[in-house]
């Protein structure tokens, strides 16, 4: 079953541009992609919690490429499919006026295929190839409108992404040169037998730089605000909600935790990179006036939380505190799920705002709740979730991270997390004041544009934002998040699953 996750989007991605060469059938394209994502969502829910591997071409693991489904990848699959489904639902109405939609949905499907591939594959080089499939489609999608700014953002993203890919490839070269294998499970067996660890460290550093460029960690973040604010709204939601997580954090942690068995000092490095991204991203977001740019900088900041959670997990693993390590990893992954829901909600919401007012400049618009109560309410839920107000999901994941930091004795980290939460609350309060509350400011371009097609996806995501708070309950957390955290923590389990040792 596992190759279908890649094969279906790949097939749709090739088919739609082919149909478009003969006839422009916008509705058909949108419905096809909606069905595709719906099918994949159902498939990933059915497969959830299962542990299996698939041998591509029938070749056994160390030689051939294999797809691995464990706790972590099944969680990521559900996140990808869910966000993609809602995004396509939104795009059906939102993108209907654009041209070349066959190419749009085709590239969208290819991007999905790439992300599914990264989530499933158990081979480092295969991961690189899928990463490039997803990344190249996203470069093209960012510049889809072909305006001057979109092209500029796309070019910037392309250059940074290409440099990142070159670094990753160099890292793979060093890894293969010193370990002699590309299979992640096989690497984890062989890596401890390598006499000269310096090349392993070098390739780890290259991986952190390369995947860091893809995930927009703080020294490498400059492309993200441009790309995410210039892309068409559904694509911004996909990029911020899923792509940077799957291509950046997921791929990096898969290689570092399961493949290289956490080389010394990398968890500390990840933690501090996370803390830095979190803090600096939040500080820059405070000063933004463009709604989408603010959301983009906030993405950098929130990605910091995820990286920090995973990095802390690594620190506690190496200190021999497995229980707290599991908690920290659960916090990071919980935040990954939460950020995917509320950030895509907020990006889709910003698209709705742009439709209503014709601009995204916060100083020129206001009173959205009076204009459109439903989208106003969903946007409020999104902002409250992301700033960590109690009943919503964002609060619970931040709570888990803070508890893990305090129990593990990393008090400075806990302090930074709490302080950044306050900053997050501050800039979303600014959004609240400027955009939601008060009298209607600015010209309402067209009130009729807020159709059910726009706000139904927002409602779905808003309900998710409230409902996902339930993941905090130990029983549900044990089923959904704990297997994912253990997949990272127990490297031997992964090796056993793949190699059958």
């Amino acid at each position, binding site marked *: 079953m596992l*190759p279908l996750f890649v*094969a279906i989007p*790949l*097939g749709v991605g*090739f*088919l739609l*541009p*082919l149909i478009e*060469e003969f006839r422009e059938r916008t509705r058909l394209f949108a419905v096809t992609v909606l069905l595709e994502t719906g099918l994949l969502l159902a498939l990933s829910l059915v497969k959830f919690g299962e542990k299996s591997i*698939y*041998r*591509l*071409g*029938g070749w056994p693991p160390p030689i051939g490429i294999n797809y691995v489904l464990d706790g972590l990848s099944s969680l990521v699959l559900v996140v990808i499919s869910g966000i993609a489904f809602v995004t396509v639902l939104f795009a059906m109405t939102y993108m209907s006026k654009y041209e070349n939609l066959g190419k749009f949905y085709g590239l969208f499907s290819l991007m999905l295929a790439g992300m599914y591939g990264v989530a499933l594959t158990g081979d480092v080089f295969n991961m690189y190839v899928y990463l490039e499939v997803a990344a190249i489609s996203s470069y093209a999608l960012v510049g889809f409108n072909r305006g001057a700014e979109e092209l500029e953002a796309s070019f910037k993203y392309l250059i940074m992404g290409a440099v990142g890919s070159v670094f990753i490839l160099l890292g793979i070269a060093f890894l293969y040169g010193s370990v002699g294998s590309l299979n992640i499970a096989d690497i984890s067996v062989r890596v401890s037998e390598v006499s000269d660890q310096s090349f392993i460290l070098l390739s780890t550093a290259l991986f952190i730089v390369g995947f860091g460029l893809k995930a927009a960690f703080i020294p490498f973040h400059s492309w993200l605000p441009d790309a995410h604010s210039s892309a068409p709204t559904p694509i911004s939601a996909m990029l911020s909600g899923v792509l940077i997580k799957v291509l950046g954090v997921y791929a990096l942690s898969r290689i570092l935790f399961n493949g290289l068995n956490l080389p010394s000092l990398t968890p500390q490095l990840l933690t501090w990179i996370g803390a830095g991204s979190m803090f600096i991203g939040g500080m820059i977001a405070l000063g933004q006036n463009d709604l989408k740019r603010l959301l983009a900088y906030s993405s950098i900041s929130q990605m910091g939380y995820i990286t920090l959670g995973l990095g802390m997990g690594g620190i506690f693993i190496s200190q021999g505190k497995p229980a707290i390590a599991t908690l920290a990893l659960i916090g990071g992954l919980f935040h990954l799920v939460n950020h995917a829901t509320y950030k895509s909600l907020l990006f889709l919401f910003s698209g709705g705002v742009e439709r209503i007012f014709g601009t995204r400049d916060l100083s020129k618009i206001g009173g959205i709740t009076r204009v459109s109560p439903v989208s106003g309410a969903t946007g409020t839920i999104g902002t409250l979730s992301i700033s960590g107000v109690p009943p919503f999901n964002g609060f619970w994941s931040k709570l888990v991270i803070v508890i893990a930091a305090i129990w593990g004795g990393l008090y400075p980290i806990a302090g930074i997390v709490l302080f950044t939460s306050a900053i997050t609350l501050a800039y979303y309060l600014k959004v609240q004041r400027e955009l939601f509350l008060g009298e209607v400011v600015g010209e309402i371009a067209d009130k009729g544009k807020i159709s059910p097609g726009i706000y139904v996806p927002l409602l779905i995501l808003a309900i998710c934002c409230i409902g996902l708070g339930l993941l905090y309950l130990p029983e549900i957390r044990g089923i959904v998040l704990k297997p994912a955290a253990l997949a990272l923590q127990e490297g031997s389990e992964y090796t056993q699953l793949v190699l059958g040792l």
Partner: protein
Amino acid sequence: MSGMSPIVKTVTRWVSPFILAFGIYIALTGHLTPGGGFPGGVIIAGCFVLLTLAYGKEKVDGVFSLKSASVTDSLASLSFLCMGLLGYVFGRGFLNNFIQSGFPGKAFELLSGGNMPIINVAIGFKVGGSLFVVFAYLALFRAIEEE
């Protein structure tokens, strides 16, 4: 843009069939000798690029247009995917060489690779089509600028 000088045109006319044949040879025997779908496709695309450069865009458009290249591109990738799915249905896994396990040919002969030659041909068409699309689009940009 009506092409280059008569010398170039004549030489192109003489040489291009051989280039095309060489590309097809490379793609077809990819499972036996160095080469395969990608180099073969590049050579095939090179042949069409040469024709376009020598004779001008208008003349080649009737034979091998941007649209047909892009259709070839999509069809070839779909057929590659179909080969993979056939392996999934009939063989032991996605992209499994199910023809090889069913009818093992004699080694070092043309019909010995199972579904490798078919996949190589699909890749050859795919690469040839998409490289030509890239070239044709970039040529199109220049045409817009000259107007």
